[in-house]
């Protein structure tokens, strides 16, 4: 199997003005690589939600994107508080976001469910007080 093309981004915590920049960059790169629009949309949505989660909950983190010939892997890693109950966090509508974040239109409890919905594979490793690592894969159509 050929080596993937990789990209790394640092995501700044609590900065809502720059939130989404990594996802928008990846979208541009995938367009230049002539990846089909539906795959780009799936990657963009899933990655944006993950990025926003790190901005809201984890004081930022890192995003690594690996582009293989047949799939795109997104690895989001943070050293935030961790997720206490992953199955609860996966439920649509469940959110621990604060009022100021909700006023911006976030915190609808759709982040993780959207990430699951728009990816073909998703794995969450989280430890309280240590951080969270989310690995997602979208197969290229």
């Amino acid at each position, binding site marked *: 199997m050929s080596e993937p093309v990789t990209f790394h981004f640092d995501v700044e915590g609590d900065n809502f003005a720059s939130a989404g920049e990594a996802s928008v960059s990846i979208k541009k790169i995938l367009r230049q690589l002539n990846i089909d629009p539906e795959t780009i949309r799936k990657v963009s949505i899933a990655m944006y939600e993950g990025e926003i989660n790190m901005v809201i909950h984890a004081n930022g983190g890192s995003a690594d994107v690996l582009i293989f010939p047949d799939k795109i892997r997104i690895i989001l890693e943070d050293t935030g508080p961790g997720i206490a109950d992953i199955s609860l966090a996966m439920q649509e509508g469940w959110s621990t976001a604060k009022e100021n974040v909700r006023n*911006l239109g976030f915190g609808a409890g759709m982040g993780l469910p959207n990430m699951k919905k728009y990816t073909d594979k998703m794995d969450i490793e989280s430890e309280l007080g240590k951080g969270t690592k989310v690995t997602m894969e979208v197969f290229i159509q």
Partner: protein
Amino acid sequence: MTVKQLAEKLSLQALSLPEPDREITGGYAGDLLSWVMGRAQSGDAWLTIMTNLNIIAVASLADTACIIIAENSETTEELVQTAAQKGINLLKSEQPVFSLAAQISAFLAEQE
């Protein structure tokens, strides 16, 4: 129907119109960003009263045809500039979301 045609029909104020000929294929109304992100379709006209900077990223990533700010919800110069920079069609109207949605829906039905 293109974004420019819709803007003329509904007398929308164009705050940023880098892609006037983008085709509108549907519509979506909502203010919760993750909800919109997960449900709006590519090519939708997105109706909202939310005006913080993050709507630009959502429109870009969900690939909507345009954002239409309803009820003259207050927009900043920074928002308009970011929309222009990122190539996002951003329009504004004094009409409420319900009324805009009804008209857009009728226009789209006429074309079918």
